[in-house]
């Protein structure tokens, strides 16, 4: 259980609405047990008898253990009628949710962890990209990212240079935009909503808004799950399990610009949940 305001005062997803049966079910968030009751399309979420705020945007159930300063971030693509909404299921990862977000932002691992799909070994160079902190919306953006990909998406027939943009909307929610192989001037949207269960245990909810008329749902889900499960073996074997924020513990390079900015942003917010620097860490 945490008392840290930076962790409490945020929106977190508990999963896709469609994955909740009618009636009562249990979930866990930031070390607390939650009760979720579904009545038709209405959801009630409570923790220790106290009712929590609820939203059902993007087909997902959202709640907070505190009082978030802002409403939920927006994703205008969710309203575009030609997009497929792909829910990839919930995957449990024994790692800090912050490591999941950092891994999602990382390009340099494509030729190794996702070899022959998102990258190949003989083209490992990460070209310079740009990062910025957009203070007016309190989001981090990485733009002008590029990588050669043999198989960029389920529908890809050959290699392409993919353009990427990353948008970190909250410390535990991140969205990436990548050139759609089926619609050259538009972006496919792939989101990772992370539900921190404990400081070193997370549930990942990948969600996609894709432009693709040919692939089956199973192919789209399978592709994203495959990518995510390839990352899981890394995430669960990073040491320490909690993100170390002390300088010198890890060694970023220029390719790691997004994660450097991300860690600085976490420090600014005084968010220590999921890091080694937790002040209320239980022994």
């Amino acid at each position, binding site marked *: 259980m945490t008392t840290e305001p930076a962790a409490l005062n945020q929106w977190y997803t508990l999963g896709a609405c469609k*994955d909740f049966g009618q009636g009562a079910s249990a979930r866990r968030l930031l070390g607390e047990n939650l009760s979720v009751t579904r009545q038709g399309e209405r959801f009630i979420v409570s923790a220790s008898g106290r009712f929590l705020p609820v939203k059902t945007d993007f087909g997902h159930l959202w709640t907070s253990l505190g009082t978030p300063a802002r409403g939920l971030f927006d994703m205008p693509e969710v309203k575009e009628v030609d997009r497929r909404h792909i829910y990839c299921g919930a995957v449990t990862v024994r790692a800090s949710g912050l490591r999941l977000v950092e891994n999602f932002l990382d390009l340099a691992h494509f030729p190794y962890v996702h070899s022959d799909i998102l990258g190949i070994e003989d083209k490992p160079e990460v070209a310079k990209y740009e990062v910025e902190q957009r203070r007016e919306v309190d989001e981090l953006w990485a733009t002008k990212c590029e990588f050669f990909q043999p198989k960029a998406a389920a529908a890809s027939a050959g290699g392409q240079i993919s353009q990427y943009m990353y948008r970190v909307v909250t410390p535990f929610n991140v969205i990436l935009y990548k050139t759609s192989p089926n619609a050259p001037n538009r972006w496919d949207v792939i989101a990772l909503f992370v539900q921190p269960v404990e400081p070193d245990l997370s*549930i990942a909810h990948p969600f996609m808004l894709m432009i693709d008329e040919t692939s089956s749902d199973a192919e789209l889900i399978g592709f994203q*799950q495959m990518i995510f499960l390839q990352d899981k073996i890394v995430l669960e074997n990073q040491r320490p399990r909690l993100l170390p924020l002390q300088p010198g513990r890890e060694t970023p390079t220029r390719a790691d610009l997004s994660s450097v900015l991300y860690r600085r942003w976490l420090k600014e917010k005084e968010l220590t949940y999921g890091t080694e620097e937790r002040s209320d860490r239980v022994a």
Partner: protein
Amino acid sequence: MSLKLHDYVLSAECYAVRLMLSLCRLKYERVAVDAYPGNAEAPVLFDSDTDTELHDAGIILTYLAREYDIQWMPQEHGQAVARWLAFAATDLATLSAARRIATLGAPGDLAMAVKTGRAALRVLEDALTDQSLSGQDWLVWEKPSIADIAVFPAVALSHDSGVGHEDYPAINLWQRRVRKLRGFVGMPGVPDYF
């Protein structure tokens, strides 16, 4: 192309079939089915040449060896092969169950599944040690067989439920031999290359 496989990318049983097909250099049509979050069944193999439909990884591996590449099914060691196929389907299945509980939130007792999974790994470790001290690198005789292919996926994926290979030096060496076989393919959790 006569072979068609209903396949789920994350399933250990499906991986055994995909691996066998690749090692035998067999072309096949892959139909992705949604076993999670959906409920579709996989693996299912269809062979239009023989009008066959098969469910269950062990049965499919046996069929592929007999029909297309008999070196994977040494006749003189039929009983030993059958024992290992049964081992993969029962004892090792607890490791696959542990993986589903730990990763996909399936219901179940993770600690218990891990405990019985580890007991299965110890059996495998002892067997591989016995084999290597008789000068054999593979489960059943001096060459790889469908016994090795059936057993490999759950073992290679044990990390997904937090079971590493630190206690199992013979398994460590054996699974590297499997990964060096010509035609080997990996899956998420089992890196492709060395």
